[in-house]
């Protein structure tokens, strides 16, 4: 009886979804090693791994920086800053990521080349630098830029929520000690705000890994694009997309678990 109850308690504590996922992953890996055609697909798709990670990491880092600036502007005392960042955030959040991607790739990049040429006009006339052309920006760069601009809007809202989550008394105490607005923001509010939204920020990285698959529509050779081309040429859709899914799940599930661990740790810390 007690044994049965203990077994039940242990069974209740097991994350069965994870067991199933890891089990399937192991079966997939086993099959792949045994099956020659899976081995080939693995090798092919793996070549896109670096591009996927690279695009995701670069866009994430850039959107963190831009998102922080936008989030600060959104909570600024200065109305024009607030309005401008709200304008940007609402505009970008109202567009599908895919549309942002096409827009930046085919409208933004040529426009950027024009702007740069305008700014550098004297240097170009003097022959010091060559005039920019849209094709100077690779599609990977354009895709990364699009993801950055899109995600910056989401991340800005996370930072704003974090800033608003900090108790008003903290700001008053800092002001009462003679700290300026920027000192208060930098030394008192932001450290606490960032800590409060760390899990949410980490979740955005998982999301950007998944959305990095969108770059395949521009022909960028990421996991999805390589899989798509491979499947189309060999008709091995089932095997190929199994492998593609396997790669994404390895990244996203492990990262999600890290985020959970981080959340638990922060909760424990604040409860202490």
């Amino acid at each position: 009886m007690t044994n049965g109850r203990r077994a039940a308690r242990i069974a209740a504590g097991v994350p069965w979804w994870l067991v199933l996922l890891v089990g399937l992953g192991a079966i997939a890996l086993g099959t792949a090693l045994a099956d020659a055609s899976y081995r080939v697909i693995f090798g092919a798709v793996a070549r896109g791994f670096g591009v996927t990670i690279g695009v995701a990491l670069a866009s994430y880092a850039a959107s963190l920086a831009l998102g922080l600036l936008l989030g600060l502007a959104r909570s600024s005392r200065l109305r024009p800053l607030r309005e401008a960042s709200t304008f940007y955030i609402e505009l970008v959040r109202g567009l599908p990521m895919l549309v942002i991607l096409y827009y930046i790739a085919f409208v933004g990049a040529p426009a950027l080349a024009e702007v740069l040429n305008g700014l550098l006009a004297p240097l170009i006339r003097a022959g010091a630098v060559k005039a920019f052309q849209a094709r100077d920006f690779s599609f990977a760069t354009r895709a990364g830029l699009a993801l950055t601009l899109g995600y910056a809007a989401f991340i800005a809202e996370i930072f704003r929520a974090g800033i608003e989550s900090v108790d008003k008394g903290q700001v008053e105490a800092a002001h009462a000690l003679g700290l300026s607005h920027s000192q208060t923001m930098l030394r008192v509010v932001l450290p606490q705000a960032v800590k409060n939204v760390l899990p949410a920020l980490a979740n955005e990285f998982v999301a950007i890994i998944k959305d990095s698959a969108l770059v395949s529509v521009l022909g960028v050779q990421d996991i999805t694009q390589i899989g798509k081309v491979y499947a189309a040429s060999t008709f091995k859709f089932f095997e190929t997309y199994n492998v593609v899914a396997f790669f994404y799940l390895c990244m996203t599930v492990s990262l999600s678990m890290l985020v959970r661990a981080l959340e638990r740790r922060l909760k424990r810390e604040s409860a202490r």
Partner: protein
Amino acid sequence: MSGFIRVVDAVKTFGDPERGGVRALDGVSLEVARGEVVLVIGPSGSGKSTLLRAVNRLERLDSGGIWIGDDEVTARRADLRRIREDAGMVFQSFNLFSHMSVIDNVTLAPRLVRRTPAREALEEGRAILERVGLGDKLDAYPRQLSGGQQQRAAIARALAMNPKALLFDEPTSALDPEMIKEVLDVMTALADDGMTMMVVSHEMGFARAAADRVVFMDRGRIVEQGTPDELFASPREARTKEFLGHIL
């Protein structure tokens, strides 16, 4: 007059006065001399906290003026840094910086605002924390301290800027009864050292032990003031009597 803190005809309204806004301060004038300890009492909503917060400009007045020494707090281009160096503030809810250790809480403002070198700030901070009985809590985080310890740390943080006056906004209201004494002891010691203090509080023990004057406020006005003995033993105004009847 020789008041160090001077409040002249202070008026402050919250909300739209046309549509039932609240007059938190309705023409308050008050002087606090150097080294004087003034206790401000009154029912909630009487404007006592607003008055205190206006003195270091956490609230701005609609009209009237406030001076600390020669500095006009209410001037449009007031030197806020200097005003806040002159008048430190202790809050009801402590408001210690929760992501910093106690010693970092105490040394932050000296380092950032006064540009005190880190080592010097550390030595001074350590001495001040000794003074409030927290010499063994330098590296503790606020959440690891009791309420009384947190409030003493907050007092130390205010003291680290060498203020000429300290403003206390209900410093013991958020504390469990057994912790009130340790905070009041620190405050009484400061009063004995000659610190100029404005205290919003209903602690009668502290009033008798340390206050030079008690000011009773109601509905944004000063109703009556006097020494603790005068005011508590023989209040003149009916409203004062009624209020004291509730709290004594």
